[in-house]
């Protein structure tokens, strides 16, 4: 009887640990105060799934099955998708917690395969699947934009030749892309922090909106027979309190969560092990709500405890308008088009080191194939000294028409407060008439530059703005016109030649006009 009890207990224990370790979920919202009454919300959701070796059934528990299927089918080790709207203003807002370029960016790292072709086909197929999953319009087959960065560090652990990177600046983010993203959360938007996303259009009334999805397969051993999936979902928002509350107070603005989201957090997702809200007030703002724990000026609210005593979580915050930046950007980057003429144009990127110390950065640029870049035109300049500057390393992979973009990587050591410019010239390429997108006159995007800053062993990413450029665009009735024109030319040529070579000459009696008329009527 005792033994039976013991076995039962053991069984229970195994079951319990199984349940505990199979899946875990944590959510966190951190809030930062930005100058000019701006507020920065940063949501982070992390799901982990531990593959059970014993069971033949793939039981995903609360982990999104679709992501599990996707990464298993295409042997993906790491995947990152970010979509954003608006531009993060580095000079005003400092550094974001996670950077993202305007529009979309997708990259993935694949398992080692027998040949790189398998990885290429997996990449194309998975990008198509992701495109379908999130309602995007990524089409890497018709618009080949895949780069394989060699020196830029996207992932800390993976072999760089297995990484595929695509920047999709023309992607526009909307609620239709947000809905599938929210569905990946275990409680969707029913419970927990995600309750704030219930009124989705409200989220898009912000200055800056970004969603990100980051998947990692984390191996326990080198052969990767034991692994777990780690899915991090990030949503960032920058909103202006004055615009939302419509106050006109010179010094302060008062707002609550409800003002921004028109929703409050009332319940918790039961599978969440941790549900935290951290308000980084830093003497720039005040709140009356008593935090569950406090360190310095950052107030932490453990919602699990908090919601035991109160019905809802909706802090009211009084924020000063003019505040200092807390996380200034280490470098600033700006990109623009210069010296444009009928045949070619220049792309200039200005990088300024805002630090008082030497900073090493990697510049990573992909330019679509239809802008023909000349490597001979590449000039790296120290702007203040007006001298050519020799970078530590330049890697240039020329693009191939309809196959891959031009890819430039430059390693630079920026001196303190130094300003550098990188200049390239590019020709306009010609597209075939059926290669033009439907909205040609909108222009063609030049991907934003990714600059990776290596500071004290940590990699920080900063993106430049994307550029828009017009390509020589035909009138689209052109194909028919061309056919007509060539046909006419051929016809004229042929007609006269035919005439010359086959005409018979006969003698005829010259007739007066009246005679001609007479003979005409006689007929």
């Amino acid at each position: 009887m005792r033994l039976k009890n013991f076995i039962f207990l053991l069984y229970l224990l195994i079951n319990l640990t199984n349940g505990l370790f199979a899946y875990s979920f944590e959510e966190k919202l951190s809030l930062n105060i930005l100058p000019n009454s701006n507020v920065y919300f940063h949501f982070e959701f992390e799901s982990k799934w531990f593959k059970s070796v014993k069971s033949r059934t793939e039981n995903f528990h609360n982990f999104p099955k679709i992501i599990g299927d996707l990464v298993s089918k295409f042997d993906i080790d790491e995947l990152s998708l970010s979509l954003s709207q608006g531009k993060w203003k580095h000079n005003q807002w400092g550094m974001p917690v996670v950077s993202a370029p305007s529009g979309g960016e997708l990259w993935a790292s694949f398992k080692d395969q027998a040949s790189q072709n398998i990885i290429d086909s997996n990449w194309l197929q998975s990008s198509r699947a992701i495109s379908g999953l999130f309602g995007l319009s990524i089409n890497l087959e018709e618009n080949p934009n895949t780069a394989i960065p060699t020196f830029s560090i996207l992932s800390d652990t993976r072999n760089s030749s297995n990484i595929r990177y695509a920047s999709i600046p023309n992607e526009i983010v909307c609620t239709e892309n947000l809905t599938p993203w929210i569905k990946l959360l275990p409680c969707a938007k029913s419970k927990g922090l995600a309750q704030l996303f219930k009124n989705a259009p409200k989220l898009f009334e912000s200055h800056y909106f970004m969603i990100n999805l980051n998947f990692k397969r984390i191996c326990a051993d080198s052969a990767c027979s034991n692994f777990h999936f780690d899915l991090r979902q990030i949503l960032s928002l920058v909103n202006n309190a004055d615009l939302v509350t419509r106050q006109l107070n010179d010094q302060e603005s008062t707002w609550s969560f409800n003002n921004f989201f028109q929703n409050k957090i009332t319940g918790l997702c039961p599978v969440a092990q941790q549900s935290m809200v951290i308000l980084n007030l830093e003497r720039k703002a005040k709140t009356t709500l008593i935090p569950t724990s406090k360190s310095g000026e950052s107030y932490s609210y453990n919602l699990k405890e908090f919601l035991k005593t109160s019905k809802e979580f909706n802090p009211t915050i009084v924020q000063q308008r003019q505040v200092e930046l807390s996380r200034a950007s280490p470098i600033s980057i700006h990109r623009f088009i210069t010296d444009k003429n009928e045949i070619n144009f220049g792309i200039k990127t200005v990088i300024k080191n805002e630090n008082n110390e030497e900073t090493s950065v990697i510049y990573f640029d992909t330019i679509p194939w239809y802008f023909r870049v000349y490597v001979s035109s590449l000039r790296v300049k120290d702007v203040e000294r007006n001298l050519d500057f020799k970078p530590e390393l330049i890697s240039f992979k020329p693009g191939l028409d309809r196959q891959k973009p031009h890819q430039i990587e430059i390693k630079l050591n920026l001196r303190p407060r130094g300003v550098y410019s990188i200049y390239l010239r590019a020709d306009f390429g010609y597209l075939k008439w059926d290669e033009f997108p439907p909205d040609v006159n909108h222009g063609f995007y030049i991907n934003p530059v990714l600059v990776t800053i290596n500071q004290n062993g940590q990699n920080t990413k900063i993106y430049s703005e994307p550029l828009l450029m017009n390509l020589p665009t035909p009138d689209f009735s052109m194909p028919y016109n061309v056919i007509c024109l060539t046909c006419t030319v051929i016809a004229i040529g042929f007609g006269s030649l035919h005439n010359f070579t086959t005409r018979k000459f006969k003698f005829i009696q010259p007739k007066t006009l009246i005679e001609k008329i007479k003979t005409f009527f006689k007929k």
Partner: protein
Amino acid sequence: MNQAEASESSSEPVENEIELVNLKNEDQQLNQLLIINTIYYIVVFVLIGLPIWIFTTSTYRASLPFDSIDQLAKSLNRIEYKINIEIINFNDELTADILNKAISDLNIRLDKDGKNGIELQFEIKNRVATGEEKKLALTHKIELLDQVVCSDGLNKLHMIILDDDSAKKIVSEDQYLFLNCLYLNKNLAKDTERLSKIVLGEFLHIEKINEEYRLKMDVERRLPSKKDIRVVNFDNEYEVTFSWLNERPEVYSKWNVDECVEKYFSKISDKLSDFIKISIKAQTLLYSDFGSYTLSYSKLENESFYYLRQSDLSIMTNFIESRLGAKISDSSALEFVTYLPNKEPLYIAKNLQNVKDSRSVSFMVPRWGGIYVYNPKDENQSDDLIRVEKAMKTFLTQFINLIGIDLHKSSKVVPRSGIYSSEIFGYLLTKTLENQLNSINTLNSLSLLLTRIKSMVIEDDIAEQIKTSVESIEQSLSLAKDGKIKEAFFKSKIGFLSSEKAFFDKSLLEKLYFPEDQRFAIYIPLFIPVGIPLLLSMKSVIGWYKKQKIKTD
């Protein structure tokens, strides 16, 4: 007046003179050259210009085995199958007379009205059970017995015949009456009529096969039977997903799905793994967010419960489907959802007049899967672990139905924990025929389409698929004729999958939206200025030719 007449008379001879000169000139060499020039233009235009235009504006078409496809379509009128039956006796062997009589009975029972194109040939063999088989039967290891009997492959249909004495020992105690339908007592063993009835009805599903054949050959395309609508389309791989839609995660946090899958599904998926792939996945979803959807509430004297009307089921399925998420794999998906409702207990009312007695907790969605409503109170739930054994049994039955395996009617224990090889034999037989018919039909439609619509492109790899399909189906038909059902099934699978792949390939449609008349319209600016002078000069060439003919005559 006179003057005028005079001038007219004087001009006539002049004109005659001119014509004479012209006629003379016509015989000159220069004139000959002009005619040759004209002919040269016409020849160049017809021999080079027109072919170039046709070649550059026509669509690409790889060569296809149209003849073989026609041959296959014709062979549909008469499909031959050979069925090998092995009778295993636990007592005496059956005499050759009985066997012959059984075969003739089988043939009589077959619907031989001349219109039926399926021709079944039977070959019955007869042997006494081995000691091992008897031992297994007596110790009720029915599944093991099944395995031993079928160790020589599934090309034969095995039947076990018991007599009274042994039947008492074996059958009466065992609940899984796999043997029940084969059970014949000593007298009945000679009752060949019953034997043939069982073989055709229970093992070979002859009605279903005939129905399938009729449907495929039917030009009017009647609606398929209820059973046909239910069964998912044949696929090489099925992805089975067990989802737990939990409306009360605060209370219930775990379910024992892994255990139950192992217990109920792994046996079947192992048995079928030689023929189709089945991958099993599970997930948990929280909060369905049914929105405005409301449940009916019934309150009776002693108990109150919620119920779903049958018309609500599709709405409920749609809501659930939206939570299940998209699919990545290409295989057919079957969804089995355990729904733990917020308002308990919840039932499905089959009859609105008498909800209480007709209520149930599960329903099957044709070609999709099944939904089981889990009411913790009814299932004697005490802790936070959901035990889904009952649900899993229901899902198993639904799964067997959905992929189209027919269970023996006389095995009354439902839900079952496994399937027997004779049932798999029946499955293979029906699916082989179904695949053969489907892929021949597909190929035939494709070849019809291609002959009618000239602007359809056929790429090389599509042609390759079609060739593979045709070859596999031909092989499958001849294998079936030889009684090798298992091999015939594999070939028919390849044939079916590649014919579907070829038929639904999007490259077929590439040029379809470019109308044929446009091909001419675009080139009209070329054809008119070039064509009209050529036509006119052709007229002059014909005139010249006629003159020459008259001259030589």
